[in-house]
């Protein structure tokens, strides 16, 4: 619930991002990346379609693109892995830039695992994932006291199914602005 409200400020960007990304709903890293890329590449192209909208300046488009990247707050991982995927780098870089330019902002990184394997091992795995994301942000200029990490292991899945589709969505780190 808290996450929902904290993310509300990115709502406009989200709407835009979602529209441009088409009906791709699977929140894999590829989808995130594609959405981000399309915002930038098709910025001018899309203008003709927006009947009510005035032509936007380059700055406005860049800001919107950044906002769209910042709206992505979930990062996915492979099974039994805690390595940040390269296609998440752009989004994480956007968060790092935002956090380093807004030192008062603080985040919580929540590590999660899928249901396979044992619970305490998955807690450790979730922590590894949260720490991997934390490390990326730290080397990109974010201050350590802006970040808090916690691992929920497999205790808080977003999908209840017992299939690869559900598991892929549950192996994640959620970045939550406090």
């Amino acid at each position, binding site marked *: 619930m808290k996450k929902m409200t904290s993310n509300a400020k990115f709502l406009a960007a989200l709407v835009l991002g979602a529209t441009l990304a088409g009906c791709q709903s699977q929140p894999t890293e590829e989808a995130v990346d594609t959405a981000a890329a399309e915002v930038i590449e098709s910025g001018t192209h899309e203008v003709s379609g927006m009947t009510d909208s005035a032509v936007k300046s380059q700055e406005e488009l860049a800001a919107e693109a950044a906002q769209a990247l910042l709206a992505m707050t979930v990062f996915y991982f492979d099974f039994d892995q805690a390595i940040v995927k390269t296609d998440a780098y752009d989004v994480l870089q956007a968060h790092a830039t935002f956090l380093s330019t807004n030192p008062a902002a603080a985040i919580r990184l929540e590590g999660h695992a899928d249901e396979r394997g044992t619970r305490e091992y998955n807690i450790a*795995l979730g922590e590894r994932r949260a720490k991997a994301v934390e490390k990326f942000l730290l080397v990109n200029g974010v201050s350590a006291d802006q970040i808090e990490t916690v691992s*929920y292991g497999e205790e808080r899945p977003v999908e209840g199914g017992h299939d690869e589709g559900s598991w892929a969505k549950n192996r994640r780190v959620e970045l939550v602005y406090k």
Partner: protein
Amino acid sequence: MYLPKMMMALFLMQVSVFAQAQLRIEITQGGDDPTPIAIVPFNWSGAGLLKEDVANVVAADMGRSGQFRPLERADMLSQPRSSKEVFYRDWRVLGVDYLVVGRIDSVNLASVQTSSPASYGLSYELMDVRAQKPIASWKIAEVKDLRAAAHHISDTIYQKLTGLRGIFSTKLMYVSVVQQGSGEKVYKLEVADADGQRPRTLLESSEPIMSPVWSPDGKRVAYVSFAGGRPAIYIQNRFTGKRIKLTGFPGINGAPDWSPDGQKMAMVLSKDGNPEIYIMDMKTRALRRLTHHYAIDTEPRWTKDGAALVFTSNRGGSPQIYKVDALSGRVVRLTFRGSYNARAQTSPDGHDLVMVHRENGQFHISVQNLQRDLFANLTKTSLDESPSISPNGSMVIYATQHKNMGVLGAVAINGSIKYLLPARHGEVREPVWSPYLN
């Protein structure tokens, strides 16, 4: 000079030939088939109906052990009240080896004024049908809880016939999760009888509850709670409900396990940057770090002698079971089969290692004999986890998925029987078998 010697040899040979006349046959193999037993409904001398069907509870207990096959009540030809009324031939015809008869008498009627419940006296006898003679008889002078009395009777009979202490009066603790209509989840720490009946809630929370364990005397429990958004290890008195926060370090506070003498608590902390096994002295609260490795070290479980702990580590590239000496910290790898072995526990006799084992992408409960190179999967379902061994070492309780719900299953450590505990609404997970409680 050598003549007497020769005579002696001849004489000895004679004796051995004579001894051979007594035919001796060696039996070196046998089955583990359940033994047929009949539990005759206990005779109730009082008025009205009793709240519990004692014989039924005993029969169910015996059947769940996997070592006995109770006779259906409908198949009984007679219902004797004592050994004097038993016609052994009748039971022999039914293929029964052992017979239990008993009676229940009223000791004190329930009193509305003092609000004291009724109490009962029970007596029961165990008979050997084949030998046609009573084996033993027992009495319970006064008891209020008939269900508890029934489990006690099961323990007594089981021990008499198997030589092993029964586990019917022990308890199970587990975490249940119920999704509310609003989508919010409610986590509960519950304790039930060994047959899954009479659950009682110890703790309720909107945040996850994990890794419950019993104190060696069964009076207290420890667990991990995420109340407040961060994990912390708590200890709670099972009877008073009083609880204290044992640890709340930054990072992981997990997998608590009481040492067999109750003096120490093993746990996993990542306060130094990496999940490591620590031992806390329960008196001084002093912490001692036991493992030193950049890999994941977790799920410590004491061996029954308290000299070592088994734990899960991926230091070899995949999660495997290791054993660490509680004093020296010396580490030995125990499992080599497959690429995922975790959450292990040693049996009370120290011979077996029960763990979660992945095979063909499926997670089973498996047992590895530590003395001989024997390995067996106890379960065949795909998402089995959290095995916990009964205090007599005969059964393993575990969590599994059944019809898309988290339920509890039990399996004999020799694989002879497997059953699911009664399903409840919501998910049930992380069962832990209590120690002997009396």
